[in-house]
């Protein structure tokens, strides 16, 4: 078998290529595109929410519709937008940063994506028949008694996409541990890789709790179990625990890789090595560790008692310490550096004060006694949007600007990038800063309307205006993407004069990444070589055959099967014949897994001679 790389293909061939790909760079694009679509859907939902709250006693959407909008906005943004963006960035950058040709389990990488994708599609199909409406936290008994099938779509959609995430987490763990290039010791890994490692650990231990919680809720809603039904002896506090044992680490799952990419971006665009590298690594691990001990701070008003509340309050405040270490290290890295204010750097610099504000309100909320005042008001809404938009969304924009050349071979237009930044940045603070005060004035979250005369009119109007600014920023970014793909300039291998391994190979990289595995001789390996006048990596091995995995359609089929099964399970309550659909789905999944385990899949080799021929193209 030789290298079958057809260059210019028809649409059908390209589609088939993406449906079957196991290449981490293409999977990154898949994650990015589907995450982007879900991000737009979630953004549209947010805009509708803000329009409803623009003026008092508004009737723009019905109260039931409003509940669906807030539920789907939260669920979509966390599970279907932020998560795939994180996975897109991890997929494009991590294997390249450690000098690997692919991830440890290319097949599972693809499976993880397709499970996520079908879960997300299932969840969003609920819009046709009534979307989930019990809030993204789905507290029982509100969620278990919610009529219609909305919450069933929530349960099964998240179950399927959650399985995909877990698979992705294990994959990146093994990749980072086993696939590093010679010389790439743990303490030489770029910080993005480090944070990807810790995030994967968090995924591994957090998602099973969600899996169980969703199973219990499914059993309650669809099969008559009584986990959360007090009349049967059930206890809904169990759901709150399971949800937040998952839910709090989830916050760190999202934000840690963002911390990592900011570290890489800041050191690149300050032309300095990262200040306090080992302290940064330590802080990352510590945040991951503490992240598992604070979940009950979401439940201060549940009535767990003063002792439990105190313990969780203190643990929560402790997280401010490693986070503070990071903030200062970023500042010190920039201090005295040769700073280039590119679009990526602009988002990064804006992130620091924005996220820090979210951190401050986090410590305020951590004070259990004070939290009784803040709980379920717009103060909380403001807090977590400062953390998630000011942290994760800013980070994703920065990361996309930074790695776009590596993903697509073209540099996103810098001018348009900055033009997108300003309305988004201003709009973000307009929208959410005022919400702190709305919350302190007593405006509860999740309410459909507020009344005139409550003194909340102006604040809400400002907030809504801000949302339109953010929309404008997003649209400019989209325009930038389109313009760049049509007539953007071709990127060189190293357009940012960067420091890490991914910039030592062409943009976009050949499908085998590294023709010869590089030899790593220090932290920021490419920079080390530049300083010593080499300018490129020394290979660690002679040119030889490269082993590559085969494409496969099986991941798509496994995921399709679970999608069909989910649909059948949802509707078997109405008509037991749907059970056959569920069983059919299960059989598709199991059958595909069976084919996978019975068929030998050894991959193929790219021969040395072919590589030598192609050598002309790379540098």
């Amino acid at each position, binding site marked *: 078998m030789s290298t079958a790389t057809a260059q210019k293909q028809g649409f059908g061939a390209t589609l088939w290529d993406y449906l079957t790909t196991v290449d981490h760079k293409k999977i990154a694009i898949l994650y990015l595109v589907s995450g982007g679509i879900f991000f737009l859907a979630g953004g549209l939902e947010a805009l509708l929410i803000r329009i409803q709250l623009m003026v008092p006693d508004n009737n723009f959407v019905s109260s039931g519709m409003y509940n669906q909008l807030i539920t789907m906005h939260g669920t979509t943004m966390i599970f279907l937008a932020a998560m795939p963006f994180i996975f897109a960035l991890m997929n494009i950058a991590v294997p390249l940063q450690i000098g690997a040709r692919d991830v440890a*389990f290319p097949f599972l990488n693809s499976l993880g994506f397709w499970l996520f994708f079908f879960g997300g599609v299932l969840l969003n199909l609920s819009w046709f028949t009534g979307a989930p409406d019990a809030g993204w936290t789905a507290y029982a008994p509100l969620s278990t008694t919610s009529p219609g099938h909305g919450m069933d779509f929530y349960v099964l959609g998240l179950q399927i996409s959650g399985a995909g995430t877990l698979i992705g987490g*294990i994959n990146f*763990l093994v990749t980072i541990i086993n696939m590093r290039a010679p010389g790439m010791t743990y303490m030489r890994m770029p910080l993005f890789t480090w944070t990807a490692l810790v995030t994967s650990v968090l995924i591994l231990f957090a998602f099973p709790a969600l899996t169980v919680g969703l199973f219990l809720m499914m*059993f309650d809603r669809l099969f008559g179990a*009584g986990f959360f039904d007090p009349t049967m002896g059930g206890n809904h506090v169990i759901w709150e625990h399971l949800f937040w044992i998952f839910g709090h680490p989830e916050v760190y799952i999202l934000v840690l890789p963002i911390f990592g990419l900011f570290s890489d971006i800041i050191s690149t665009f300050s032309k300095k090595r990262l200040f306090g590298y080992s302290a940064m690594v330590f802080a990352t691990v510590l945040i991951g560790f503490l992240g598992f001990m604070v979940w009950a701070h979401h439940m201060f008003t549940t009535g767990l008692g003063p002792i439990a509340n105190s313990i969780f309050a203190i643990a929560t405040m402790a997280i401010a310490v490693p986070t503070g270490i990071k903030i200062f290290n970023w500042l010190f890295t920039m201090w005295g550096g040769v700073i280039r204010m590119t679009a990526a750097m602009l988002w990064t610099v804006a992130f620091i004060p924005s996220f820090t504000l979210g951190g401050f309100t986090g410590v305020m909320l951590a004070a259990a006694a004070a939290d009784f005042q803040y709980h379920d008001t717009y103060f909380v809404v403001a807090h977590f949007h400062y953390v998630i938009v000011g942290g994760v969304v800013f980070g994703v924009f920065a990361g996309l600007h930074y790695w776009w050349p590596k993903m697509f071979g073209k540099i996103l237009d810098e001018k348009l990038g900055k033009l997108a930044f300003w309305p988004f940045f201003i709009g973000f603070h307009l929208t959410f800063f005022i919400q702190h005060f709305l919350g302190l004035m007593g405006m509860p979250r999740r309410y459909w309307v507020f009344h005139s005369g409550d003194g909340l009119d102006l604040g809400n109007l400002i907030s809504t205006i801000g949302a339109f600014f953010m929309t404008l920023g997003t649209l400019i970014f989209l325009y930038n993407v389109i313009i760049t793909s049509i007539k953007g300039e071709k990127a060189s291998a190293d357009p940012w004069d960067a420091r890490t391994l991914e910039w030592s190979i062409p943009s976009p990289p050949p499908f085998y990444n590294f023709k010869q595995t590089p030899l790593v001789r220090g932290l920021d390996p490419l920079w080390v070589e530049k300083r010593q006048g080499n300018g490129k990596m020394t290979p660690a091995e002679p040119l030889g055959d490269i082993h590559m995995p085969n494409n496969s359609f099986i991941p798509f089929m496994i995921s399709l099967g679970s999608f069909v099964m989910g649909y059948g399970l949802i509707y078997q309550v109405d008509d037991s014949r749907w059970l056959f659909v569920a069983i059919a789905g299960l059989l598709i999944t199991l059958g595909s897994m069976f084919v996978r*385990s019975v068929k*030998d899949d*050894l991959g193929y080799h790219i021969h040395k001679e072919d590589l030598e021929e192609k050598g002309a193209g790379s540098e």
Partner: protein
Amino acid sequence: MSDEQLQTLKPGQSPHEPEKATLEGKNKFLGFWFFLGGETVLFASLFGTYLALKDKGAETKAQELFGLELVFIMTIILLTSSLTSVYAIYHMKNLDFKKMQLWLGITVLLGASFLGLEIYEFQHYVHEYHHTFTSSAFGSAFYTLVGFHGGHVLFGLLWIVTLMVRNAKRGLNLYNAPKYYVASLYWHFIDVVWVFIFTVVYLMGKVG
């Protein structure tokens, strides 16, 4: 790296740890152990739920419900199956494919009889005590925890049988050795979970 992987291993010419001789094997080994770490949390969530809901809303409490004879037999069967799968891996390391298959076959038989007894046990609770999945929160939690374990046993059986049938004709090689090894890890983990189930659910249920 690829075609050699399919060559049948012969004693005296091949690595002692065939499961970790290739990079794919090493990756599988590590990834599967990590997966087991995640499974630990999964079962802990189920155990926690069970403990919080034990006896809640049920007419028949755990103390009268459970009998120990059957559970004892099931425990011994599953423990023994753990030993037989160790034997299988022992023969794998000695590259003795036939004996490995034999011991795996015994493991499967033991696992299947465990599963049969578990189904009988559930039947018994349902018919004698009307203790069902939907009768109370206790019932839901009990069948979910023990049923999840039973589901793991069933999946493990299907997995091992698939491996045995698939490779019956071609023997042990570097491509399938990691698969066998990982399947045996899974089987041991099932036993680990059962040790906690018989202790926490049955014995502690009996003590009250």
